[in-house]
C-alpha cells in the first residue's frame, strides 16, 4: 500500500488554519528567544514575521493565501484597538496633568515626523507614488491605508512602510530615547506612540502602564489628526 504523502502535505498547507498555526508557533518561539536573550533586535513581531515569511516561501504559498488563513487572528485587531480605550481612561488623571505638553508635542512632532519622511524620500529620489504611500507612515495601518488611497499612494505599500517604521521604532526607540536624556514615562510613551503607532505601543506597554497609556493616546490622536489633516494639506499644496 502506498501512502499519498503529496496529497496529505497539500491538505496540510492549504488548510484554513495553517496560517494561524504557523503564526502561533513562530510567535511563541520568538517570545521564548526574546525572554532568554533579552536582545533588543529579537523583537517578537520582527522575529515571527521573518519566521512566517520563511515558512511561506518554503511551502510555496503566497501572501494572499496566508492572509486568508490568518484571518482568525487579524479579526481580533479591531476589538484590541477598541480595548486601548481602557489604559487611556485609567491614566486620564495623569494625562490631564500633562495636557499642554501632550497637545504641543503631538502637533509639532507629528508635523515634523510626516514632513521629514516625505522630504527625505523626495531628496533621495523616490517616485511620487512612493512618496504618497510613505506620507502616513507614522500612523496605525488601517488609517494609513485609507489616507494613502486618498492622496494617490498604494494602500498595501503604506501598510508595509507603517510596519517597517513601527518595528524599527520599537527596536531602537527606548534605548535611543534614554540615551538622549528622555526618562519620563510619559515622554517615552508619547515618542513611541507618535512615531511607531501600534508596534511602538505594544513595546511601550512593556515599559509600564503609564508609558503604554501615553503611547496609546499619542497613537490614536496622531491617527485622527493625520486622517483629517494630511489629505487636506496635500490638497492645498498640490
Amino acid at each position, binding site marked *: 500500500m502506498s501512502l499519498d504523502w503529496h496529497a496529505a502535505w497539500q491538505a496540510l498547507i492549504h488548510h484554513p488554519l495553517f496560517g494561524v498555526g504557523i503564526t502561533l508557533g513562530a510567535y511563541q518561539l520568538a517570545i521564548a528567544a526574546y525572554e532568554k536573550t533579552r536582545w533588543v533586535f529579537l523583537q517578537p513581531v520582527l522575529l515571527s514575521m521573518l519566521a512566517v515569511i520563511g515558512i511561506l516561501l518554503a511551502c510555496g504559498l503566497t501572501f494572499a493565501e496566508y492572509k486568508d488563513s490568518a484571518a482568525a487572528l487579524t479579526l481580533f485587531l479591531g476589538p*484590541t484597538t477598541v480595548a486601548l*480605550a481602557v489604559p487611556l481612561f485609567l491614566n486620564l488623571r495623569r494625562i490631564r496633568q500633562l495636557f*499642554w505638553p501632550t497637545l504641543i*508635542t503631538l502637533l509639532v512632532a507629528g508635523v515634523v515626523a510626516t514632513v521629514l519622511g516625505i522630504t527625505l*524620500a523626495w531628496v533621495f529620489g523616490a517616485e511620487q507614488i512612493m512618496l504618497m504611500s510613505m506620507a502616513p507612515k507614522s500612523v496605525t495601518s*488601517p488609517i494609513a491605508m485609507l489616507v494613502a488611497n486618498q492622496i494617490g499612494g498604494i494602500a498595501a505599500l503604506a501598510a508595509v512602510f507603517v510596519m517597517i517604521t513601527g518595528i524599527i521604532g520599537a527596536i531602537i526607540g527606548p534605548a535611543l530615547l534614554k540615551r538622549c536624556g528622555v526618562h519620563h514615562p510619559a515622554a517615552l510613551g508619547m*515618542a513611541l506612540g507618535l*512615531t511607531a503607532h501600534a508596534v511602538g505601543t505594544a513595546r511601550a506597554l512593556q515599559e509600564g502602564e503609564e508609558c503604554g497609556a501615553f503611547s496609546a493616546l499619542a497613537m490614536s490622536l496622531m491617527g485622527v489628526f493625520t486622517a483629517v489633516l494630511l489629505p487636506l494639506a496635500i490638497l492645498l499644496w498640490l
Partner: protein
Amino acid sequence: MLLRGLSWLVLCQLLGTALNVLLIPILPGPIIGMLLLFVFLLLRGEVGEPLHLASTSLLKYLPLLLVPPAVGVMAYAEDIFADFWAIAGALLLSLLISIVFAGWLMQKLIDRQQRREDA
C-alpha cells in the same frame, strides 16, 4: 466575565463600523469604536471588572495580532527593492530624528511645567 467584557469591545467596534459607513468614512471603525468606549468610560466614571479583564487579556497579545499584517512586506518586495535606498534612508532617518525630537520636546515641556508648579 471575560466574555461579557469581550462583547462590549465587539459591540463598540461594530458601532464604530456603522458610524464609519454612515458619517465619517475617513476614520476606520476600530478607532471610532475606541473613542466611543472612551466616552462611555468617561460618562460611567469607572472600568468594570469584565471590561478590564477582557482588555488586558487582548492587549497582552497585541504583538501576536500584528504579525499577519507585518508579513505583508513579502508581497511588495520587488517595488521596495526598486527604490530601496531612497525608502530605507528616508524611513530610517526620519524615524530616528522624529522619535528623538518627540521624546525630547515632551520631556522639556514636562520639566518646564513642573518647574512652574514648584515655583
